[in-house]
């Protein structure tokens, strides 16, 4: 619940007087407020710095250390103050949170120290106010990334293998971290060597060698020593293929591996060779084959496995793809405009090189990037004027937008991040609100259970419930009594909705006699059978529920155990003894969770009258079982 809700609780409880004339049942007794009524000033000594505050201020957040009874552990009798051996600078912010309801993150503090203080005082970081939330999250993410990098580096370095790893896992590890074993290192260097050899061979292949005897023309070395190059190529491709197949075998997720960039590069590097083998020595297709050989140059990208820097470059380019796209687009616009203008300016001239607009593209690009090859030159005056404008604007178009675009997109990028962060924060906040709401409701249901269980026992084992919780639960209880309906949670409600509609139908699934039992009950209120059906369905689901304080989660387990049918009939007998005074069809009852549908259910023995009493049910059940206790979710 939000900040000063504790302040308003007395008012809400007072307003409950308005329900009294309408109430159908008597109001429950309010919890005894053992705390002293008058407000007092508490002294908190944090490492020598003395803080003073009202007790009420601290009581605003009963689920934190200072707001709960946990602070009693730190009470110093001699000096009559609470002593904390923690950082007084940080404590100032913590105390301000109690006072104003907003938690601020001090920018000059270390994020980890702040987190630790929050954890110590039991404050959840999600309630940091909007003003400081972004800073907090940024710093936290930065810190986490740094930690992750460190651990990754450490792991990558010398993490020992898990003892029982398969050969496949070991192989994969050898491929990913070559420093782990000598074999892996050897393989790493061998592949690196062969990549280099393959690339150099590709390059050298095209250098002209001295022509063989009897020919004038220079021959490229590739054709002169064709066999030698072919053998070298084959060897390299064999090694690469072997490596690829090994990686494919060792990969933990083959599909993911096949989709990764490095694997695609590998495939592209070796495919031309195989295609070349397969293709016949045909004049027509050899042209296409020659083009394929170009792809062999992609083997150089295999070096990126060996070089961290190359990987980073690739990643940077990938992340800047949209910015580069925009730059390209604006350049294209400028090129088209100037090419058109130059073409029409030079159209009339005889022997002009500006034969078409696409032909003028080349001129525009060369001029705008200030290359100026001089292969295309304007001759008319208009052409020259526009040409000079083109070259001047080329400088502007290329040089100026780049920093503007870079900074612009850096800002937009951060804004997007902020939007995503805000959305994520909103989601977290909504989730927390939902959890808190559920928590409140379930806390109340739990409170009722406890109360019913201990209704005969006067000393309530409180389970660390604060006065605030008691009073709030009492308020909700008053509302229940006023309307004569009870709170339940979503799961039970949907179960009930289902069973009420199919309650009569399910009875057919069990023995014949039970059908009569159902019919007997159908005249009465919410048939107990229907509830039991619902319970059976619930049996297999464990409901985890929040209990206790508003912002934390408790767990309420519904475990199932076997019930001997006799016990149920005895339960039923006891149930009808304790009829409550309700003239109306509505009453509260328990859902008993039972694992198996009773084959021979003694449903026919059910008396048709309603009889609720969750507490008694539980007590009798407890005596009947030898298995773990079954909690009944009281509705």
């Amino acid at each position, binding site marked *: 619940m939000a900040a000063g809700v504790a302040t308003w609780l007395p008012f809400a409880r007072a307003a409950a007087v308005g329900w009294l004339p309408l109430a159908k049942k008597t109001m429950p007794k309010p919890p005894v407020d053992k705390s002293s009524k008058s407000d007092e000033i508490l002294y908190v000594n944090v490492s020598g710095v003395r803080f003073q505050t009202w007790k009420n201020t601290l009581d605003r957040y009963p689920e934190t250390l200072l707001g709960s009874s946990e602070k009693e552990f730190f009470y110093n009798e001699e000096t009559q103050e609470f002593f904390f051996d923690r950082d007084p600078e940080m404590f100032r912010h913590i105390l301000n949170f109690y006072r104003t309801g907003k938690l601020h993150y001090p920018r000059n503090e270390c994020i980890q120290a702040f987190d630790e203080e929050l954890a110590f005082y039991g404050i959840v970081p999600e309630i940091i106010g909007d003003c400081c939330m972004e800073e907090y999250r940024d710093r936290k993410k930065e810190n986490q990334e740094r930690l992750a990098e460190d651990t990754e580096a450490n792991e990558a370095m010398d993490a020992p293998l898990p003892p029982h790893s398969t050969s496949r896992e070991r192989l994969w590890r050898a491929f990913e971290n070559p420093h782990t074993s000598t074999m892996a290192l050897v393989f790493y260097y061998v592949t690196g060597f062969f990549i280099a050899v393959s690339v150099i061979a590709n390059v050298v292949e095209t250098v002209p060698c001295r022509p063989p005897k009897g020919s004038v023309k220079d021959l490229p070395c590739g054709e002169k020593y064709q066999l030698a190059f072919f053998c070298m190529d084959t060897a390299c491709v064999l090694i690469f293929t072997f490596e690829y197949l090994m990686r494919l075998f060792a990969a933990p997720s083959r599909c993911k591996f096949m989709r990764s960039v490095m694997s695609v590069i590998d495939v592209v590097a070796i495919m031309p060779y195989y295609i070349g083998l397969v293709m016949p020595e045909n004049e027509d297709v050899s042209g296409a084959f020659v083009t394929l050989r170009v792809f062999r140059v992609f083997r150089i990208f295999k070096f990126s496995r060996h070089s961290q820097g190359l990987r980073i470059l690739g990643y940077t380019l990938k992340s800047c793809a949209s910015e580069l796209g925009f730059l390209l687009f604006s350049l294209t616009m400028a090129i088209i405009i100037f090419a058109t203008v130059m073409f029409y300016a030079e159209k009339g001239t005889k022997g002009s090189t500006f034969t078409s607009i696409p032909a003028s593209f080349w001129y525009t690009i060369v001029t705008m990037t200030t290359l100026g090859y001089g292969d295309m030159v304007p001759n008319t005056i208009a052409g020259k004027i526009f040409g000079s404008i083109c070259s001047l604007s080329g400088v502007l178009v290329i040089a100026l937008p780049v920093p503007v675009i870079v900074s612009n997109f850096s800002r937009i990028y951060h804004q997007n991040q902020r939007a995503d962060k805000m959305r994520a924060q909103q989601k977290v906040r909504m989730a927390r609100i939902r959890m808190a709401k559920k928590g409140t409701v379930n806390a109340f249901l739990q409170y009722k259970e406890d109360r019913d269980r201990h209704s005969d026992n006067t000393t309530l084992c409180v389970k660390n419930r604060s006065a605030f919780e008691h009073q709030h639960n009492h308020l909700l209880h008053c509302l229940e009594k006023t*309307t004569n309906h009870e709170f339940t949670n979503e799961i039970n409600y949907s179960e009930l909705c289902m069973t009420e509609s199919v309650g009569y139908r399910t009875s057919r699934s069990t023995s014949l006699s039970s059908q009569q039992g159902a019919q007997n009950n159908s005249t009465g209120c919410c048939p107990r059978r229907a509830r039991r059906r619902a319970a059976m369905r619930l049996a297999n689901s464990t409901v985890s529920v929040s209990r206790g304080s508003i912002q934390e989660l408790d767990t309420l387990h519904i475990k199932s155990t076997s019930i001997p049918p006799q016990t149920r009939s005895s339960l039923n007998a006891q149930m009808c003894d304790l009829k409550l005074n309700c003239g109306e069809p509505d009453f509260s009852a328990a859902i008993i969770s039972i694992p198996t549908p009773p084959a021979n259910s003694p449903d026919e023995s059910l008396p048709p009258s309603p009889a609720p009493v969750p507490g008694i049910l539980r007590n009798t059940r407890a005596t009947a079982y030898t298995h773990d206790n079954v909690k009944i979710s009281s509705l």
Partner: protein
Amino acid sequence: MGAVMGTLTMQAKTRRLSRDKTDDDLEITMVCHRPEGLDQLEAITNFSKRELQVLYRGFKNECPSGVVNEDTFKQIYSQFFPQGDASTYAHYLFNAFDTAQSGSIKFEDFVAALSILLRGSITEKLQWTFNLYDVNRDGYINKEEMTGIVRAIYDMMGKYTYPALKNDAPKQHVEAFFQKMDKNRDGVVTLDEFILSCQEDENIMRSLQLFENVI
């Protein structure tokens, strides 16, 4: 070209920002209300000075401006009833607290109502409750007003109740209420009928004592 566009847009943006800021500055004028002195409040309510101090500190912390408007009131009240919709009932409560019908609750109104509810006599409490139910302040509670109130109360329960809320539950409740309260069967409940009927009902009498130690 792109540069020109970029610089132009940036210029426009900064100019727009500065204009908005001055407007915002002018608009930040807080409405502030201070309550009467502690002595006067002590005289007109049944609270001691210390209790008034505690109450005011809480109130001032939540509403630094000194007044609560209806939306804040609804928000605050809704927090106590997470499952249902407490806004309708909060609306009725707000009108009951805001005796001067000014649209906002000041600390004096707040404390006056609390004084009646927690420290008042039985008659005063019942009178306050009657005023709550009598929405149009005509001195009679008719069935429509009562149905509105009861429906608002049932709304607070939310959807997930056991047994499931039927649509006519409020109406039945209202019928039962009128059965009990409307002595002369004229279709409306007057203040005297109300007080008399409540005094006859043991449950109500007992419950009224329950809330005395809330503060």
